[in-house]
């Protein structure tokens, strides 16, 4: 595809359930990022993958959050035991390299925890 693809586009889940969000980056982009966007707030950095290097997980808000990436392709963000404060839009972005290249964002997954 031409852009970053995220699925599902919308997810409603009950408090306490686990959710898995998927991101397909642009082909050839070695760097992949996850951000969280709460209503009325700026984007919050969650995690960064660059090639085969260890990911920068410093933005993950708690141990309920985890992410994986298979090689230089698909990434999944998993939230365990969801809480209402996890409700947000989760945005994935990719770039050609991790330094000096612009980020290309997907349209996000809108997560609502009821």
């Amino acid at each position, binding site marked *: 595809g031409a852009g*970053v693809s995220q699925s599902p586009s919308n997810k409603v889940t009950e408090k306490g359930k686990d959710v898995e969000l998927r991101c397909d980056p642009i082909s050839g982009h070695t760097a992949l990022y996850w951000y969280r966007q709460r209503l009325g707030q700026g*984007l919050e950095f969650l995690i960064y993958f660059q090639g085969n290097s260890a990911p920068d997980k410093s*933005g993950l808000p708690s141990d309920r959050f985890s992410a994986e990436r298979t090689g230089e392709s698909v990434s999944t963000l998993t939230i365990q035991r969801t809480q209402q404060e996890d409700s947000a839009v989760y945005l994935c972005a990719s770039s050609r390299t991790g330094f000096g290249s*612009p*980020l290309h964002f997907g*349209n996000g997954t*809108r997560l609502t925890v009821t």
Partner: protein
Amino acid sequence: QKEVEQDPGPLSVPEGAIVSLNCTYSNSAFQYFMWYRQYSRKGPELLMYTYSSGNKEDGRFTAQVDKSSKYISLFIRDSQPSDSATYLCAVGENDYKLSFGAGTTVTVRA
């Protein structure tokens, strides 16, 4: 103190007006400065990207960076209804761990 402060607006201007947006930041180590545009229910798209003080122009868009004042601006000339969106500033020491402003919502009235 937030790393990046941005007036959320909303800002409403008539078509053809100049739109002026700005952000302030707190960390003098920031050296990457970006502006993103985000349409409703879409992901942000990069508008302008600079790593130095001064002006950068691209068509109707001009980005200004003043590192001494820790202040960045975006100007949109001859604004169009299609410019109606939320504009996010982003700053960072490196360009992957960016700090984003909350965004300013702009409406250009036809």
